[in-house]
Every structure is written in C-alpha cells, then in structure tokens.
C-alpha cells in the first residue's frame, strides 16, 4: 500500500507550523539526549537518583514474577528431567569422573584456603554480612551487565559494597535506591577485579567480557603461566572486595591470558550477600601499624 502522506501539512498555516515545530523539538531533543549522555559521563550521581527511584517503583513486578518463576520453575524442571534421560545419564557419568578428580583438587584447595585464611586473619576480621537478598532482574537488553538487588538503603546497602553469592563473587553495588540496589556484575565489561591464583598466589586481574565470562591476565612476565582449571580468588588489593572470595575458574588459556568462568552464577544463586566495603576510602588516616 502507498503510505499516507499525512506528514504533508497542506495549506493550513497552523498545521504547517505545528509540523515544523515537531521537527524542531525532535532535533533539539536528540541534542538534549547527547547532552544528557555527556553529563551522565561527567556526573552520574544525579541520573542515578532518578533511575534508582524508578527501579524502586518497578521492583514489585520483578519480585512477584521471580517468586512465581521460583514456584513453577521447579515443577517444569522435574518434567523436563525425563527428556533424553539416556544421553543425560552418560553425560552425567562423564561429569562424575571429572568431578571425582576435581574433588581431590578441591580438598587441596580447601587446605590452601584454610592456610590463606590463617595468614590473612592478621589483617582483617571476618566481614559481617550487611544483608542477604535476591537478584530479581537484570539489564537483559543492554550491553552492560547490571542486576537489580532486592534490598536498598533501607536495609543498610551502601554504594560500592561488594556482593557475593554462596559460590563466589557476583559484583558490587553501584546505585542504591530505598528498597533496591543496582549491582555491577563482575562479567560487565567495565568491571575489573584484582585476583590471585589459588595455590601460589600469582597476582592477576579479571575483567568482564560481557558475555558471561571473564578475561584473566596474569601480572607477571613470561608466557603460559595460566593453566586450565586454575581457580582465582579475590586478593583484596584496592580495598573494594574482601580477600579470598572465589571469583573464577580458567576454562581456556592463550598466552598470558585466560578466559575464566565465574564460579557464582547470578542467575542461579538463591541469595546474594552484600558485604561491607573491605577498606573504605580513607577519610580518616588508618592507625599506623607498628613495624616489627
């Protein structure tokens, strides 16, 4: 069909001016958008307040939906278990073999963990959890990776606090509303976590790749220092994330970089634990440590 030429205003002056004005408004608005982009780059605080308020308002939708999904999801899973049970059985058997080997490694890392914990107890106390809450939704259509946490300033959540799941690090809080908070996931391309390799403490950094994996780069010279299956935990460097939170396991390596899979899957984690900032940016000078 031929499109109706309704944008032609005809002979009416009023319609012509109206049409012209709408184009002017549109163009000015597009420029305003660009300006807002620039200001959000310079000063994100004001924008965050608006967005946090709206997230607070819309969070009941996600909360109810996620409760419903949790209720029905298990039923659907129980039925779908029976599809291709045979091949699944074989796959599980193969996985069990791997898991058995991993278990031995895990015992070793457990010991290593205990040793590290003993070492680190000198510097820090056990971080208390601020609040535990669910992740209720995420920015599924944006190339950034944020998730919405079901707890906000009313529960004591503050900007910058690290968020972890039972299995490992999830991210950190970047925006706080009254009852919700926005969490920057470790898989976001703008998030970098200082890590060490479990076992020998090789320092590395883990940067999100945006597709659910992390790029891990060792901070040493020399190639091929990373191995498949290496496990990385937070180092505590920088003072945002507390040390010894599991972060990722390397799945492929190339040169001095590796691709890691996060150990905590935010989509599966039942609860996310918000922890206090490990070392708040020093407003007051820390007490001097006696040199021994």
């Amino acid at each position, binding site marked *: *069909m*031929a*499109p*109706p030429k*309704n*944008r032609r205003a005809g002979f009416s002056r009023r319609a012509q001016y109206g049409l012209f004005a*709408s*184009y002017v*408004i*549109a*163009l000015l*608005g*597009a*420029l*305003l*958008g*660009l*300006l*807002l*982009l*620039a*200001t*959000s*780059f310079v000063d*994100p605080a004001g*924008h965050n307040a*608006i*967005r946090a308020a*709206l997230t607070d308002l*819309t969070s009941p*939708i*996600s909360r109810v*939906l*996620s409760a419903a*999904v949790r209720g029905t999801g298990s039923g659907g899973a129980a039925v779908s278990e029976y599809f291709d049970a045979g091949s699944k059985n074989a796959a599980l058997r193969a996985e069990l073999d791997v898991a058995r080997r991993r278990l031995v490694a895990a015992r070793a890392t457990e010991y290593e963990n205990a040793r590290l914990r003993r070492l680190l107890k000198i510097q820090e106390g056990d971080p208390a959890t601020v609040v535990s809450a669910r992740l*209720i*939704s*995420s*920015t*599924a*259509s*944006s*190339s*950034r*990776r*944020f*998730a919405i946490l079901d707890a906000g300033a009313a529960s004591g959540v503050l900007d910058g606090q690290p968020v972890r799941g039972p299995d490992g690090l999830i991210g950190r809080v970047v925006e706080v509303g009254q009852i919700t908070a*926005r969490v920057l*996931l470790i898989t*976001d*391309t*703008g998030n970098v976590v200082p890590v060490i390799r479990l076992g020998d403490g090789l320092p590395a950094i883990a*940067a999100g*790749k*945006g*597709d*659910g994996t992390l790029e891990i780069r060792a901070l040493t010279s020399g190639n091929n220092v990373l191995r498949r299956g290496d496990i990385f935990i937070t180092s505590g460097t920088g003072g945002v994330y507390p040390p010894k939170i599991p972060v990722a396991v390397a799945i492929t390596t190339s040169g001095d970089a590796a691709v890691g899979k996060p150990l905590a*899957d*935010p*989509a599966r984690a039942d609860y996310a634990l918000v922890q206090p900032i490990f070392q708040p940016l020093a407003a007051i000078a820390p007490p001097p440590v006696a040199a021994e």
Partner: protein
Amino acid sequence: MTQRIRSEAELRAARLRGQILPVLTTLAGSCMVLIPHVATMPMLPPFGFLMLIAWRLLRPELWPVWIGLPLGLFDDLMSGQPIGSAMMLWTLALLAIDVIDQRLVWRDYWQDWLIAAGLTIAMLLGGLVTANMAGGEGHIVLIMPQMLISILIYPAVARVCALLDRWRLS
C-alpha cells in the same frame, strides 16, 4: 467487526484507548527487562524500540516525531543504558523513517521489515557506543546474537501491533 450503539462513557473510553494504547504498549515493551532473569549476555531484544518502530510504520500519522524523547527517556531509565542514549537514538530513528517515507513511493511488509532491521542494527550499535562511553568496553561481537534475534522477532512484534491496532480502533 460488529457495529453497535455505545454510551457516552464507552465512546470516551474508546477514544482514550485510541490515543494512549500505542504509548502504553511501547512502555510495556521497555518494561520487558523486568523479567526475573539475570542474563549473562545481552540477548533480550529491545522490545520498546521494536514496538515504537512497528507502531510508526503501521500508523505514520499516529505520533509527532518527538515522541521518541519521552518514550526513550523511560526506556533509558529501565534498560540500564546511560540516560539520553535511547532518547537520542530513538528520535534519530524516527527522523530516519520520515526521510525514508519521503523517498519511498510505497512500502509493504518486506520493506517494513527491511527498514526495521536496518534501524534495529543501527540502534543496537548506537546503544553499544553510548554504553561504552559510560564505562563499558563491549565488543561488537557481543551484540550480534541480540541483533539477529531482534530482527527475526520483528514480524511477531509487528503482528501484535496490528492486532492491538484493530482493538484500538474498534
């Protein structure tokens, strides 16, 4: 469609529906990010944008060309993109459709899909650029699957739009 006699209140409701249904459904499209899933990749099509394009292509006379500003602002607030991103990109997309409409003598389903596909690709690329400006470092490969899904799902969105339009004008 059956014609029947309506009361004043019914008429008013129908008129109101005719005006605000497109806006509401576009806002609802933007609200699709509220689904309770923590995505590891950007896979969800930008439903708000797809609704906007579908309405605009279906009913050119429906909206003034600046409608992308308020709708885009809402989408920015929902989607996690930096504020101003969709405001700018959606308005530019609407202006682009206006230009295309002036050039094309006529268009039908296939041309609509082609226009929507081109604009969706441009919008997602623009969104990646603005997201990277605000601190991300996403690569273009990251949004390829989302582009593909969005283009393939557009006909369904357009169909939903057409159904809603029939109800809107009934």
